[in-house]
């Protein structure tokens, strides 16, 4: 009888353990990720509303301390290499937007404490458009833009 109880107890605790492991691995993780990922900013159809959703403001201040390196003419809009460098002190994040894409917000990079003001990636562009780099520092948004001509669009294949 004592053994039986012990069995039941063991089974019960193993099952409870499995449930909490499932919650931890399968349910909580994606929910946390979704909470962090700013859906509204990435679904916004204009630069202003994307920035409002991401940073709560779209008041941009032009800055010559940001430079965008991207080709003047992109033969293939599916792969446009873009590098953004900034020398603004205390830059917290660098966002890249392609103005004429269906959803302009392309990527937002949150910089760590020792991370330099530099990111490089490759983006898709539907058509000829400005690429806008937005740097957030000390609660303000600084930006600069660069026109990239696209000869073959990368969205809609």
């Amino acid at each position, binding site marked *: 009888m004592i053994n039986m109880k012990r069995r039941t107890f063991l089974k019960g605790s193993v099952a409870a353990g499995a449930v909490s492991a499932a919650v931890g691995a399968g349910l909580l993780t994606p929910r946390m990720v979704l909470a962090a*990922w700013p859906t509204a900013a990435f679904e916004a159809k204009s630069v202003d509303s994307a920035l409002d959703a991401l940073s709560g403001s779209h008041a941009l201040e032009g800055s010559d301390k940001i430079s965008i390196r991207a080709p003047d003419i992109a033969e293939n809009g599916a792969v446009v290499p873009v590098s953004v460098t900034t020398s603004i002190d205390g830059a917290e994040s660098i966002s890249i937007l392609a103005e004429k894409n269906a959803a302009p917000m392309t990527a937002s*990079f949150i910089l*760590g404490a020792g991370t*330099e003001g*530099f*990111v490089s*990636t490759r983006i898709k562009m539907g058509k000829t458009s400005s690429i806008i780099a937005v740097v957030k520092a000390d609660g303000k948004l600084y930006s600069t833009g660069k026109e990239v001509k696209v000869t073959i669009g990368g969205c809609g*294949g």
Partner: protein
Amino acid sequence: MSSIKIRAKEEGGVTTVKALVKHPMETGQRKDKKTGKLIPAHFIQEVTCEHSGNAVMTALWGAAVSKNPYLSFKFKGASKGDTLKLNWVDNKGEKDSAETQVS
């Protein structure tokens, strides 16, 4: 095989990280040429890179980042031999991670 290729090189106190991830990055706007149906969106939403417990880079991505995405950035404070860990999660909850040593 891991979907991630990552390299980190330290020079003069600054570590340059270069990473390539194998991923389709479907926008959800493209049509399947055979069936005419939209291919569902499937793209990486978040990439994090950690060095000794600190997030040195958190990249939030939309569907307009190119297929097989590339990411490069620089940070201070790492020494040769340190471990750098990169994780990604996509909109379907799929994920992968990889580690590399700073060289």
